[in-house]
């Protein structure tokens, strides 16, 4: 061990001395070579400088060669490298010359680049390259932006023009779907490309550049929308919405993509607005379609009613016509609902928008379309009541009857059915006020009531006119002894029967007061009816005029007053009662205005008995008919200076004969 250590020590000493020697030598070499080292460094530096200078001197020719060869990128790179140096040493005349040359060539280069850029036929990447190079050349960025946009605009305008050409009348207009496809892919695609490229290239430009892009997009976008709207406006007719909805869907979808890029331009919102507008218009068109279909139904009904009956063939009954109208209207409504429903289908891109989820369903479909249609139906029906001519005008009474039954049916069943259907299909999600079912039903019932009242008035008028003419035009003083019932009365009974049948086709019978068993065989003495109360009825003698009158007045106090125009219920008996009341009251008033001879009075007696025989079965309460007819005969007797009533048996014989 000691040896080893001693050896190591020796070694270490030796190493130390060697190192010292080496250091010594190294130092001596460095100093010797120092000189050379310096000189070589200097040479190397000069060499590099010379190479640079060479490069500079050759720069113009190189640039020219590059330009000729079309290697623009390289040229621009060279130029970039040399620019700073040239700038710094431009006070040296030689450098200045070089710089000038370079500038000339660079200018040419830029021009060529621009040329290439403008030609445009080249695709976008090449253009992007040009723009990049130009930017690197130090061209002002705004100009480039403008040019780039202008170039893009030119392309897009061409697209727009071709779209517009499609709108023209001469070539057969293609599908809406094709149109929006073309527009979407051509224009919108191009716009997206331009926008993307722009943003890439000019990202460094900051907000000003983005603003320009937005303005550009907005302007072109608005023109595009204008064209789209024009085309959509052409889609007027047709109740089928499927094509339209698909086209709108494509259109909207396309514009959602660039939305991110062009958020500032608000294109997506504009597109949504367009879709909403179209949807609203469509709803309006549907409403009009429904209304005109309804009016068409009514015209058909009128024609069917007015058509002369072909011998041997019964025309369509009222019930059938009513069923036709009701079913066709309902089917139209359902069809409209179905086609409008397409707007809210899940697959459609805009069905999620708040408008479609909310306002479209509640205000648009339910309120404007359905409720609006029902209301307009009621209004149309009511307009028939207000026909100016009191003589019945052009409205056939059967139409009034049919419409009133239709409205009544709507009130009882159909309205709630339709609204339930609507609510199911279009789930209402917003809070706007909607018309409750009860309001609509009340309106429909009111319309039905008015129509029925008008019907009663019209028919009552017809019969009243007959009776009035018959009383006014006859000479009652010098008439002969009555042998038979007057033809007018038979007509009246026939007409009343016809009306009864007509109303019976559509309305239920109604409730009648129980008839007494001997209604049709009542003994008919002059002023009384054989009622249970037994009105005091002496045979009329001139000597006691006061008593009879007084007693009849007292009797009237206790009997119920007849209301000629009590509201009409929705059943046949009520309608007929109304009509008969009007007619008999007219007869009463007319009789009170004339003076009767003896036989005139007897004729009135016969006529009234005949009416009583046949009219009692139509009214709700047969006492009514008895009362009115008794009044008629009583008034006639009062108007007669020489009243001698006919024997009841003779009256009956004549009536049975006639």
């Amino acid at each position, binding site marked *: 061990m000691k040896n080893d250590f001693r050896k190591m020590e020796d070694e270490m000493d030796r190493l130390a001395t060697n190192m010292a020697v080496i250091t010594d030598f190294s130092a001596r070499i460095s100093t010797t070579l120092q000189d050379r080292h310096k000189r070589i460094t200097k040479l190397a530096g000069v060499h590099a400088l010379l190479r640079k200078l060479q490069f500079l001197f050759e720069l113009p020719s190189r640039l020219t060669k590059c330009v000729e060869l079309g290697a623009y990128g390289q040229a621009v790179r060279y130029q970039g490298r040399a620019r700073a140096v040239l700038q710094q040493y431009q006070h040296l005349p030689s450098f200045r010359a070089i710089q000038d040359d370079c500038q000339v060539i660079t200018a040419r280069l830029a021009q060529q680049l621009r040329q290439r850029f403008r030609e445009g036929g080249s695709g976008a990447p090449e253009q992007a390259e040009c723009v990049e190079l130009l930017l690197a050349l130090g061209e002002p960025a705004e100009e480039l932006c403008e040019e780039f946009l202008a170039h893009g605009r030119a392309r897009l305008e061409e697209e727009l023009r071709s779209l517009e050409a499609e709108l023209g009348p001469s070539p057969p207009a293609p599908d809406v779907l094709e149109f929006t496809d073309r527009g979407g892919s051509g224009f919108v695609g191009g716009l997206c490309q331009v926008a993307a490229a722009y943003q890439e290239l000019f990202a460094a430009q900051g907000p000003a550049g983005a603003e320009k892009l937005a303005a550009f997009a907005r302007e072109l976008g608005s023109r595009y929308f204008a064209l789209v709207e024009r085309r959509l406006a052409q889609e007027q007719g047709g109740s089928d919405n499927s094509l339209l909805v698909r086209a709108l869907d494509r259109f909207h979808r396309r514009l959602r993509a660039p939305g991110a890029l062009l958020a500032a331009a608000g294109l997506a919102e504009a597109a949504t607005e367009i879709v909403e507008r179209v949807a609203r218009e469509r709803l309006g068109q549907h409403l009009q379609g429904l209304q005109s279909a309804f009016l068409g139904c009514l015209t058909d009904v009128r024609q069917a009613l007015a058509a002369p009956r072909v011998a041997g063939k019964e025309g369509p009954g009222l019930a059938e016509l009513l069923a036709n109208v009701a079913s066709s209207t309902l089917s139209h409504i359902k069809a409209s609902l179905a086609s409008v429903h397409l707007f809210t289908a899940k697959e459609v891109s805009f069905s999620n928008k708040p408008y479609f989820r909310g306002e479209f369903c509640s205000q648009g479909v339910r309120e404007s379309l359905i409720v609006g249609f029902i209301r307009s139906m009621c209004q149309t029906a009511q307009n028939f009541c207000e026909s100016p*001519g*009191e*003589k019945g005008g052009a409205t056939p009474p059967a139409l009034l009857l049919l419409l009133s039954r239709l409205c009544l049916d709507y009130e009882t069943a159909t309205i709630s059915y339709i609204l339930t259907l609507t609510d199911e299909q279009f789930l209402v999600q917003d809070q706007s006020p909607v018309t409750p079912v009860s309001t609509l039903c009340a309106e429909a019932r009111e319309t039905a009531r008015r129509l029925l009242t008008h019907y009663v008035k019209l028919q009552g008028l017809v019969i009243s006119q007959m009776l009035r003419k018959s009383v006014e035009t006859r000479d009652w*003083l*010098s008439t002969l002894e009555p042998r038979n019932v007057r033809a007018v009365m038979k007509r009246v009974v026939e007409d009343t029967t016809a009306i009864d049948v007509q109303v019976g086709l559509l309305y239920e019978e109604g409730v009648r007061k129980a008839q007494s068993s001997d209604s049709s065989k009542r003994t008919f003495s002059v002023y009384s009816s054989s009622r249970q109360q037994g009105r005091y009825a002496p045979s009329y003698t*001139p000597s006691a*005029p*006061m008593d009879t*009158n007084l007693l*009849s*007045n007292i009797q*009237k*106090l206790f009997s119920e*007053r007849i*209301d*000629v*125009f009590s509201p009409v219920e929705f059943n046949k008996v009520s309608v007929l009662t109304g009509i008969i009341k009007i007619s008999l*009251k007219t007869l009463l*008033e007319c009789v*009170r205005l004339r*003076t009767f*001879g003896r036989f005139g009075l007897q004729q009135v007696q016969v006529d009234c008995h005949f009416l009583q025989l046949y009219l009692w079965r139509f009214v709700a309460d047969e006492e009514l008919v008895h009362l009115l007819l008794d009044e008629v005969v009583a*008034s006639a007797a*009062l108007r007669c*200076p020489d009243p001698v009533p006919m024997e009841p048996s003779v009256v009956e014989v004549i009536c049975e004969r006639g």
Partner: protein
Amino acid sequence: MEDDAPVIYGLEFQIHVIDFDDENNIINKNVLLHQAGEIWHISASPADKGVLATCYNKTADGKVVTCAAVWRMPAELEPGGHESPEDAASPAHALELLCHLGPAAHGSTACVAWEPAGDGKRVISLADNHILLWDLQESSSQAVLASSASLEGKGQLKFTTGRWSPHHNCTQVATANDTAVRGWDTRTMSQIYCIESAHGQLVRDLDFNPNKQYYLASCGDDCRVKFWDTRNVTEPVKTLEEHSHWVWGVRYNHSHDQLVLTGSSDSRVILSNMVSISSEPFGHLVDDDDLSEQEERSQEPPQDSVIATYEEHEDSVYAVDWSSADPWLFASLSYDGRLVINRVPRALKYHILL
């Protein structure tokens, strides 16, 4: 107040003169005999309380002809005179015939109307399709035909009723024939205006608004009452459809023309407040100092309304009229001979007055 209620009893045609004592609510009745025939129309002279004109039916040779004549009531039975004894058994007095209004050759006379503001010297009678203007001379004992006019046209045109307008110096008369209402100038006897199809059916009665010059009310068998401005006859100013059967009479209140009375064969008398077309649509003008803030705010344009429906009659009401003595009193007459006298509700009366 005088009121006449013709009731027809067998061969005795009578006029009942009924005295209504307002303060004591007592009715006196006197009966006058009118033997000439059955009375269809009656009107009293505005000047002389005892003079009246009637249209009556005369049956001759199996034909009925309506004639018109002027009569005088016996002096002691003149209404408003000294009190007559309440004696139901007093013998009926007879009317004294003053003069006939023309030969019956003109046709059946439907109506006789006295000139309202005149001295009882001029009358108009409507016979078939003629209007005849008479001058009564020598204390109404002689009637001279001053002028006449006829209605030309297809068919049998017949006047049904007529009324003298109290405006324009009493030179205008309105007549009704079938569904048309025509206005005539009595100075030239020419037609001034014509309201075609005033009503859907026959026009029964007319009346002029006493305060507003050009306003006229008509009622007819279409159950409606229509108010017209004669300067614009294409459309009625207002239409009332309160009745359910023919309206036989319409009358404006003589001083407050917003009160309109109508009677109809549905046995009802309806008093309506037609404020919007009256001469005082907003009531009296009140000084602003008197109105407190709240009152001003609550003043809205007044609404037309039905004031009351009177259902005391059991049969058709054929005539209604206002009293010329007390503007709040009116009477109505129905077929069964019932005469009902009513008042305007007090609340409304004070509202109008104050």
